[in-house]
């Protein structure tokens, strides 16, 4: 079930809000509200297939046994073994369902053997809840936490706003909210609904409008089209902003929904395209994944404690695996690897104290990110190379015919510039892209608006209701053209 669907908004959400409003009465104990949220979340998962729910329950049950053991066992060595076994179990679990075809297919390719796909179903949200479970087990081992109560534990993992595409939450971030689950609080509803509307607007209106054009561009690329300079940049920039609005829109919806129920989820995006370095980009993009990779992969691999070589190698390996997390495909691995190289270079520059002007830093960072999205979006290496050739001007320069009368003087400045009827980039796409760019670079982000200094605003100006009602309405009427979230595939 998509957040940006009428069945979710008009049936699931309104139904749940109604039930929760009744259960919010002080007459009802907290555990009933937890049961309501767990049940609703289970329905949410089951809607995507009963097998997904079944596998989630299996994973939850087995991980709970590990957690109980970690609590009961006093011997550090055994506790460590238990933690290692649980991590292996979780990695095997995700590996079986998500990577089995990829690993076997790649091996068959290397050995030049025939390969038939296993055809295993990819359970809904497996990438996200598995990481959350790994983090929970490792933290329980490290900090000797008490195993949470069953209901809190299940709700922590299965809570529907964050289940499918994050943020990847840590128990200590929501422990208090979960334990003291109250009924509706008007201030939370006001902020939560507004943030949800922002997310809906970002996803249904902005991202899906851009998707129409960028999908067309990449479909044509997959069909063998050779893009010229402006077409290539246009298509890739459309995707650059589409994926940002798609994923940050989802995160906003998740954060807003959770806050309606009084659970504060962590920040996941902080204007990543304003970043002045690749290091900063990863501190602003999918922040909870970056944090997970840092704490549970990069630091255990050696981090920055064993000299620059180990540090750069750790960064590179972490990003390779981070890329692989996004999908069982080599293009994601290469994408992660290129970002890893970017991070390593960035660290090297810092250690050599090389400083560049701010605007140049931003430009280089943004260009690197945009170039990398090509690898992320294309499935064939040849396709990516054709797009890169276009972006570098190797396929000529073509502008849409409609611009000929206004920009004909450009022909003097750019030798070989042609005006032609372009199937790849149309005027509406340029217009929509300009709106997206303006939103990203001019307006404050959702966090700055609603959670300045990391705390939810105590008061929201009443007039803002007009703004968010308008955004919510535009998002709502855009739902007819809804597309799946890009990160649902991961």
């Amino acid at each position: 079930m998509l957040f940006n669907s009428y069945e979710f908004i008009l049936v699931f959400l309104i139904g749940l809000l109604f039930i929760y409003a009744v259960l919010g009465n002080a007459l009802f104990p907290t555990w009933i509200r937890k049961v309501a949220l767990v049940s609703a979340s289970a329905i949410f998962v089951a809607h995507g297939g009963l097998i997904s729910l079944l596998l989630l329950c299996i994973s939850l049950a087995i991980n709970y046994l590990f957690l109980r053991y970690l609590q009961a066992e006093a011997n550090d060595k055994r506790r460590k073994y238990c933690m290692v076994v649980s991590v292996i179990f979780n990695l095997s679990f995700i590996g079986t369902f998500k990577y089995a075809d990829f690993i076997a297919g790649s091996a068959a390719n290397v050995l030049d053997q025939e390969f038939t796909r296993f055809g295993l179903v990819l359970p809904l949200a497996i990438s996200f809840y598995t990481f959350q479970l790994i983090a929970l087990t490792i933290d329980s081992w490290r900090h000797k936490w008490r195993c949470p109560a069953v209901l809190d534990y299940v709700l922590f993992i299965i809570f529907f706003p964050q289940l499918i595409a994050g943020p990847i939450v840590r128990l200590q971030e929501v422990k208090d909210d979960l334990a003291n689950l109250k009924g509706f609080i008007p201030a939370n509803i006001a902020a939560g609904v507004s943030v949800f509307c922002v997310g809906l607007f970002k996803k249904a209106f902005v991202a899906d409008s851009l998707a129409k054009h960028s999908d067309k561009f990449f479909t044509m690329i997959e069909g063998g089209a050779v893009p010229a300079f402006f077409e290539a940049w246009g298509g890739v920039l459309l995707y650059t902003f589409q994926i940002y609005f798609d994923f940050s829109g989802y995160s906003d919806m998740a954060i807003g929904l959770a806050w309606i129920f009084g659970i504060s989820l962590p920040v996941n995006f902080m204007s990543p395209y304003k970043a002045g370095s690749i290091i900063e980009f990863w501190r602003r993009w999918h922040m909870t994944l970056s944090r997970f990779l840092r704490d549970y992969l990069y630091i255990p691999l050696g981090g920055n404690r064993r000299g620059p070589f180990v540090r750069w190698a750790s960064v590179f390996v972490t990003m390779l695996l981070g890329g692989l997390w996004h999908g069982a495909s080599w293009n994601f691995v290469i994408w992660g690897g290129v970002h890893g190289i970017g991070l390593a270079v960035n660290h090297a520059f810092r250690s050599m104290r090389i400083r560049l002007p701010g605007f140049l830093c931003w430009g280089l960072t943004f260009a690197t990110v945009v170039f990398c999205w090509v690898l992320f979006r294309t499935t064939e290496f040849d396709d990516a190379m054709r797009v890169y050739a276009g972006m570098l001007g190797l396929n000529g320069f073509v502008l849409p015919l409609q611009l000929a009368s206004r920009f004909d003087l450009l022909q003097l400045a750019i030798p070989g510039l042609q005006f032609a009827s372009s199937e790849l980039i149309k005027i509406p796409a340029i217009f929509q892209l300009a709106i997206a760019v303006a939103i990203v670079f001019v307006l404050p982000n959702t966090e700055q608006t609603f959670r300045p200094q990391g705390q939810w605003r105590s008061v929201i100006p009443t007039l803002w209701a007009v703004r968010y009602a308008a955004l919510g309405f535009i998002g709502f009427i855009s739902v007819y053209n809804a597309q799946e979230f890009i990160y649902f595939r991961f």
Partner: protein
Amino acid sequence: MWASHYIKLFFIYFAIIFILNSGFVIFADPYNIFGSPNFKSINNLKFRYQTYERVNKIYQIRRFQPNTIILGSSVTDVGLKPQSVNRLAGKTFNLSFAGGGIQEAQLAFRFAAENAPIETVVLGLEIFNFRMADDSQLVQFEGRVSGGLWATAKDIARHTISIDALYDAIYTIYANLAGNPTTHDASGRYTGFEPGAVPRTPREPMGVDVAEAAYAAFAALCREARERQIDLQMFVSPLHHNFVLKREQLDAWLVRIDTIAGAHGFQIRRFTDAQLQLRDGTAFLDATHFRPDVGDRILSALFADSARRPSRSSGR
């Protein structure tokens, strides 16, 4: 305190915007759904007609109340002028759809027969109409013509409270003010068709996968026409002589449709190139779409024969 006030205001504003948006779309009526009053140079021409032909025509026909409808695909949509039929068989509406198959034609026929005083139907048949229909499109269309309350409500909501409807309403007003040309006339005929190339030499014979469900839909259409005592005028749409179909397939199809039509007491007319002057270099807009002059000849021939037959009131 502030929060309760904020939430109330939020929902009030949301409702106001909802009402304003719906009112604006209903006023512009980009898909002819509501039959809103037409104001010249403001909302009288519908510029998204072609894209939403299957919406426009279905809602339009209730208000138009024709005696005669034309069914078929883009070939009849472009080639048969309702004005020409008007002279022969009363108030006529072109209910053909670009890319429309026989299953859609059958559903459209039933809808028209239930919602307008239909006496005559002109049906242009091509082997291409008998291919497998696009299921999702057919289901959506079926919902629209079914007359069910839920399906109708969903359809109207889809074409009123959606971002596309808002864009199209804005565009309708803008294009009317700007005096842009439209693609359809008031009787539903596609006037904005852009001619393509006519093959200069005979093409390789083309094969067509015909679907069994299409024959069933055709039989249902014939049966319903007979039961409702509607005069069903059918003909095989002519193709450019250089556009060649696989002979065996075509013959099998012709035999099958003749048999079905004959079983219900109808006849399917086939015209020779000479009858319709198809060898004239200007007879076709492209390989499959004949010009309206050819359409006029077809209609004259159909209704000349029809006049010789007993009328509906005397029974068939």
